[in-house]
């Protein structure tokens, strides 16, 4: 039990010294950290950890080496990772069968296993230390503080990295001063809209004393974004601490986490962290001997994207259909069970302990004039280094995609980066040098959203991408207001006509007009922003829309009705593998044999072809292409 400030300080110092000594190898042991984030767990990191444990025992190395699970390393496409201290050697893309070699060569023999090191995709150079990899060099970790370096299921490791120091400082301050600290930091909501966090708190603080609530929005629904998941998995106590600071500031005694049911690992670690904090007396009554009492509760989502909208989320916690409420009244006045409530996103709350621990200036020194601090992006899609990236606001897209992301794979050409998910839009090569902040992205027709950043290359059809998002929104519209319920369905139909090649220019005009109507008339942000992917792709890639409508062609060869597979009869050696792979029996021999080949070449019957692509992916001679 940690009963007062002094005990906390002593405990933190003790834990910190202990963890530093451990990483420095002062106990005479090597320490292996293994990634336990969702990405690495699904590429088998749990089995790798078991293999380490088994072999360490079998080889009698228990007094020489220890293995610990930590949170996400960030560069998920290269997972699973282990990092070995004190040398900080990073091994990546491990398999269970690699464990023996690591123990024999590195742990026993002191020799680095070269073949498991990260290889720079540009210079082809092998890099041994994590910090030397370009992916990590430009990053600043505030929201991701300690994620990937501490065991999320161990309170002492979190304390070693400053957990509850922010709360301890806050509890000695006046409540208004805590709010001022957050206001001065310039922190804006990291979940989407970017509303100043301190102002939200101020509204709730100004309400008469009584039951108030803090709600943490962990319903990370934006497809392609997984930073909240990684934070909850990697350092759940930071989010709990952020929630407690918010609770102290506005005068709330209870906090609710609302987390997607799709994130079982995050849910388990969060529950464990709440229990650890309760057992240590850091959650409960009279925390650290102060008058402040606080309890955390958990509610699970049930697969509804709209519940990321704060009023829909509150209805869901209240056991109702997750439909948004008209505003005003705002949640800060009338929220959960009609009490004043603030709803903050996971990443937002994860920044709060840092601001209170280090002071607002340390946070505000990063970023642009109106967007302070850092932002975590989930870089995904057609980019070499897929993963989580935390950079100062104001970083350019070029730095994000090329310096950190390592560029586009397979020598393909960059086409666009989609930010803000189904509510956002695309930025193109023209915008590569634009500084990323809230206002800049909006000015360019996109938005920050929760930080999903999906890179697209020349093989992606932008009309198809717009259709993808509209299909998503149609599925997820809650049905309460008609512009969103009916309008998005009509927009999807129009987009389908375009990708089928049956649309006319009149349809395009109708689509544009309808998009503007839905934007103006929907009840909540889901509907108001639903047309954005269409409007944005229309403004940047109108030629692609025109090609679909006028020429009946899909320039990226994605839309099935507007493309076909073709066999180059000069390149085809007549092996017949494509015909074997074809599920529709659409490929047959011709009577033409190309010069230099022994067998007649094959050809595709377009009337039978189902355009599955099995022929092309199986052809070893590059004889099949799309056109």
């Amino acid at each position, binding site marked *: 039990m940690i009963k007062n400030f002094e005990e906390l300080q002593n405990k933190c110092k003790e834990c910190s010294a202990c963890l530093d000594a451990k990483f420095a190898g002062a106990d005479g042991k090597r320490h292996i950290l293994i990634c336990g984030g*969702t990405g690495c767990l699904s590429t088998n990191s749990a089995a790798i950890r078991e293999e380490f444990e088994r072999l360490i025992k079998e080889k009698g190395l228990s007094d020489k080496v220890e293995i610990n699970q930590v949170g996400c390393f960030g560069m998920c496409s290269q997972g699973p990772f282990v990092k070995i201290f004190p040398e900080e050697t990073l091994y990546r893309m491990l398999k269970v069968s690699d464990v023996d070699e690591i123990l024999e060569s590195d742990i026993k023999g002191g020799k680095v296993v070269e073949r498991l090191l990260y290889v720079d995709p540009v210079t082809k150079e092998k890099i041994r230390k994590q910090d030397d990899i370009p992916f990590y060099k430009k990053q600043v970790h505030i929201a991701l503080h300690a994620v990937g370096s501490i065991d999320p299921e161990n309170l002492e490791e979190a304390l070693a990295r400053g957990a509850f120091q922010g709360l301890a400082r806050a509890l000695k301050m006046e409540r208004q001063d805590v709010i001022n600290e957050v206001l001065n930091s310039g922190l804006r909501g990291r979940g989407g809209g970017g509303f100043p966090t301190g102002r939200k708190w101020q509204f709730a603080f100004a309400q008469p004393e009584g039951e108030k609530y803090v709600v943490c929005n962990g319903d990370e629904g934006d497809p392609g974004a997984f930073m909240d998941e990684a934070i909850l998995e990697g350092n759940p106590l930071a989010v709990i601490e952020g929630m407690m600071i918010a609770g102290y500031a506005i005068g709330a005694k209870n906090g609710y986490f609302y987390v997607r049911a*799709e994130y079982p690992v995050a849910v388990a670690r969060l529950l464990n962290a709440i229990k650890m904090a309760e057992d240590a007396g850091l959650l409960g009554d009279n925390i650290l001997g102060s008058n402040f009492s606080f309890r955390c509760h958990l509610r699970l989502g049930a697969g509804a994207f709209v519940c990321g909208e704060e009023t829909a989320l509150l209805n869901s916690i209240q056991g109702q259909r997750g439909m948004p409420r008209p505003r005003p009244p705002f949640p800060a006045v009338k929220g959960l069970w009609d009490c004043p409530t603030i709803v903050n996103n996971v990443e937002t709350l994860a920044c709060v302990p840092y601001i209170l621990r280090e002071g607002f200036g340390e946070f505000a020194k990063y970023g642009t004039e109106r967007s302070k601090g850092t932002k975590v992006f989930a870089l995904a899609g057609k980019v070499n280094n897929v993963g989580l990236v935390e950079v100062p606001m104001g970083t350019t897209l070029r730095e994000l995609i090329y310096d950190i992301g390592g560029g586009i794979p397979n020598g393909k050409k960059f086409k666009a980066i989609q930010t803000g998910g189904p509510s956002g839009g695309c930025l193109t090569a023209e915008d590569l040098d634009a500084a990323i902040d809230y206002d800049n992205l909006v000015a360019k027709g996109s938005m920050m959203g929760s930080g999903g950043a999906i890179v697209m290359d020349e093989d992606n059809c932008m009309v198809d991408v717009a259709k993808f998002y509209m299909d998503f929104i149609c599925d997820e519209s809650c049905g309460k207001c008609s512009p969103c319920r009916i309008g998005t369905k009509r927009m999807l139909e129009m987009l389908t006509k375009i990708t089928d090649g049956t649309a006319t220019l009149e349809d395009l005009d109708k689509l544009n007009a309808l998009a503007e109507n839905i934007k103006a008339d929907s009840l909540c942000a889901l509907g108001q922003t639903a047309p954005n992917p269409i409007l944005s792709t229309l403004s940047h890639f109108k030629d692609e829309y025109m090609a679909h409508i006028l020429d009946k062609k899909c320039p990226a060869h994605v839309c099935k009705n507007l493309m076909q597979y073709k066999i180059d009869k000069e390149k085809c050696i007549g092996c017949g593998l494509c015909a074997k792979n074809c599920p529709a029996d659409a490929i047959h021999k011709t009577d033409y044999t190309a010069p230099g080949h022994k067998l007649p070449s094959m050809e595709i019957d377009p009337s039978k072809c189902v355009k599955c692509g099995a022929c092309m992916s199986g052809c070893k001679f590059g004889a099949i292409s799309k056109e």
Partner: protein
Amino acid sequence: MAQLSEAAVKRINEICDKYASEKTPLMMILSDIQKEYGYIPLDVQEIVSERTGISVAEIYGVVTFYSFFSLKPKGKFVIGCCLGTACYVKGAQQVIDKFSEILGIHPGETTEDGLFTLDALRCIGACAISPAIKINGKVYPKVAVSAVPGIIEEYKKEAKA
């Protein structure tokens, strides 16, 4: 509809009582029932209604709103294909189409033998290993269309074993 067993009625009442001290427990009760039985048919909703005093209409409204709750039983193996953006741009549509083709069912349906349910999921947070699928909780990374028949066979074998 078959009569619910006494044991099932007892268990559902227990789940309701577990959350009796909560202000608005409906989502938690339904999540537990879904987890335990795999679906929440109307007669179960009636029991929840009797125990909690929440009207059946309201419960039905909630059950049908959220995609995690199901009125019908799911298959022994639930194949969830992620159709989040990162997976989609890496060809997830072709993967789910292949499952659909081989199993002969659309997303959201269950095969007649009760073995497989095919679901379209919206981002499971495994964007780095896209396209990803999830079968009964196990995540498969970077699923190629050509790997789909083998995956289905794997589970057919497991069902026989």
